[in-house]
């Protein structure tokens, strides 16, 4: 879950704000601006709609996986529930820039203990606690039903999201910030210790945005593209070491030095990735 919801309003109303500010705009050659940037702006619009498709696709997968997860919980199949928990979440984590736009739903689906009042706490992590801490599904059926309906609601609402270039530019780095502040510290999945799944999904989500922006980025700064690609490769080759079967090793099995190595690799990637806003400039 996103730690602060402050940026939410900004994401939702970016276009609105921009509209207002243009009216107040006193710099004369505003028309000229519009012409100069129209080409790259429309390229960015294409990217935005491609990303929208990608994110909606992930949310659709998330709905299916959540169905599997919640059914396992309500039918008392604890092993199945544990098995599908982490992979299901990956779809949500990949699409997080969009998924968490809905400030009411994100905490319901993805809040961790302490993020919200205990009596309001539900969603994935509440059930995670039941599965791993208490080793039961009993008493968690209601949470599962609620989760399913919240996720269905998310699927319906996600259609309404307007994906702006700003959302993409901040979203890519935000995904890695999520990794830096909660996944790499083991605080995301504190009962199941499946943090590395979320970690990988966040990185993949960021990579998707980078891939979509690559043609535009190449025009601005080819070296930056090479650098970012190299750093993604570095992160993936580190993650490769922690693969186990079809999934990833438990966070608790990571050595302190390995956690640090992962954290520093994310920093090394996120620094050049934070420069992708250069695509908004005319060349």
């Amino acid at each position, binding site marked *: 879950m996103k730690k602060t919801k402050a940026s939410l309003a900004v994401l939702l109303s970016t276009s609105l704000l921009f509209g207002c*500010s243009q009216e107040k705009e006193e710099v004369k050659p505003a028309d000229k601006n519009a012409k100069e940037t129209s080409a790259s702006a429309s390229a*960015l619009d294409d990217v935005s709609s491609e990303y929208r498709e990608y994110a909606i696709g992930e949310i659709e997968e998330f709905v299916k996986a959540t169905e599997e997860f919640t059914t396992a919980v309500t039918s008392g199949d604890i092993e199945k529930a544990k098995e599908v928990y982490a992979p299901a979440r990956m779809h949500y984590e990949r699409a997080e820039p969009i998924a968490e736009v809905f400030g009411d739903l994100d905490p319901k689906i993805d809040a961790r203990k302490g993020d919200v009042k205990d009596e309001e706490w539900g969603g994935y992590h509440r059930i995670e606690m039941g599965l791993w801490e208490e080793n039961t599904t009993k008493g968690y059926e209601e949470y599962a039903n609620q989760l399913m309906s919240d996720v269905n609601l998310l699927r319906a609402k996600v259609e309404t999201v307007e994906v702006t270039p700003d959302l993409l530019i901040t979203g890519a780095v935000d995904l890695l910030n999520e990794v830096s502040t909660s996944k790499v510290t083991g605080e995301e999945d504190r009962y199941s210790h499946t943090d590395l799944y979320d970690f990988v999904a966040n990185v993949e989500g960021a990579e998707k945005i980078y891939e979509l922006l690559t043609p535009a980025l190449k025009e601005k700064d080819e070296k930056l593209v090479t650098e970012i690609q190299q750093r993604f490769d570095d992160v993936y080759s580190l993650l490769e070491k922690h693969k186990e079967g079809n999934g990833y090793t438990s966070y608790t099995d990571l050595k302190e030095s390995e956690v640090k190595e992962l954290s520093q690799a994310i920093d090394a990637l996120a620094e050049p990735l*934070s420069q992708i806003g250069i695509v*908004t400039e005319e060349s």
Partner: protein
Amino acid sequence: MKENTPNDETSLFTKKVSRRNMLKTAGVGGVGVVIGASGFGGLLNLSDSKANGQTNDVVPFYGANQAGITTEAQDNLYFAALEVTTDNKSDLIQLFKDWTEAAAQMTAGKLVGEASLNTSMPPKDTGEAKELSPSNLTITFGVGPTLFTKNGKDRFGLKSKKPAELKDLPKFPLDALEDSWSGGDICIQACADDLQVAFHAVRNLVRIGRGKTIIHWAQTGFQRTKQADSQKTTPRNLFGFKDGTANPDKKNSSEMNEHVWVKAGDGPDWLVGGSYMVVRRIQMYIEVWDRTILKEQENTFGRHRDSGAPLGMKNEFDKVDLEAKDKNGNRIIPEDSHMSLSRGDGKAKILRRPYSYADGMDPKTGSLNAGLLFICYQRNPSKQFVPIQERLAKNDKLNEYIIHRGSAVFACLPGVKKGGYIGESLFR
């Protein structure tokens, strides 16, 4: 600062933020708001002018030697030892070029990089030193033995340039060194009369190096501020004693040439004008010291606590007579006192530039976690620091109250001329 004159404002404007650039970025993503709302005045706030009026607290960055060695010690230190993660030599060279440029800007009290109006990108400078005076900031770069060879590997084809003196120190008795506080491929010593300015310097350099270097260890340090001690007396360490009274005179260039700066013939030519830095992170057992009686404290250092005078003398700078005996024939300054052993025969001198540190509480013991980041400079560690430390490690009374936790040796690179870069003589 100079940016405050109208002419400079104009030239800055044309140079840093061309009107065309401004219009280009203004079209997308609401950047135009900035211009519309604040006009050119707001724009100029984005420029690299940081401080007002104060020009007397700048230490020149360019010169035959790096600053921060014979510079009068500033109030604060931020020290970072880095590991190089890239294996590409040209990346490493580019990094030193970028660092040189940023260091020259920051020591002059300017912000890093050129101001950009693109609000879809993070600012080039991290901003916390804006409006702050240069604060006598110095940034000193050094290279450690592991930059040349690591695990037997000649990492950047520099092995043949590695000076014989650039190697780990021998293990001294009582050393309790921890890897997490020892070594490093590169060091950055930032000293300033303001800790925020020093932190800003290291933070921005580390940021520039992200992806090519990682932090291996880092330490803040302090001593009494000049403001708190307008007489600029010898600073006291955290045991309350004056330390460093017998330092060689930094203003005496022949002494510096003899003891500090590497000369032609000392080793590889690339280091001529540089200096070897030895760093020791020395933890102090604060609580143990606090319950030690004064006589014992004074015998430990060999000085009177209050005056700083050698035992038996009146004033701090009175001549030290290590042989002086009391009426019972005992030495007045104990042979195992810190001062006595540090001096030895007085031939080996090092330029000490230490800073105290205080890192909160030791979670294991609940004790105050504090001590000294001992930094010294010299021409030849094995003839200077090593024999001194061998004497101290064996017999120093002070060893009951301290423990060496970290150790590193760096070759501080020669100074740089405008247009050149730090490390040029090494990489060329």
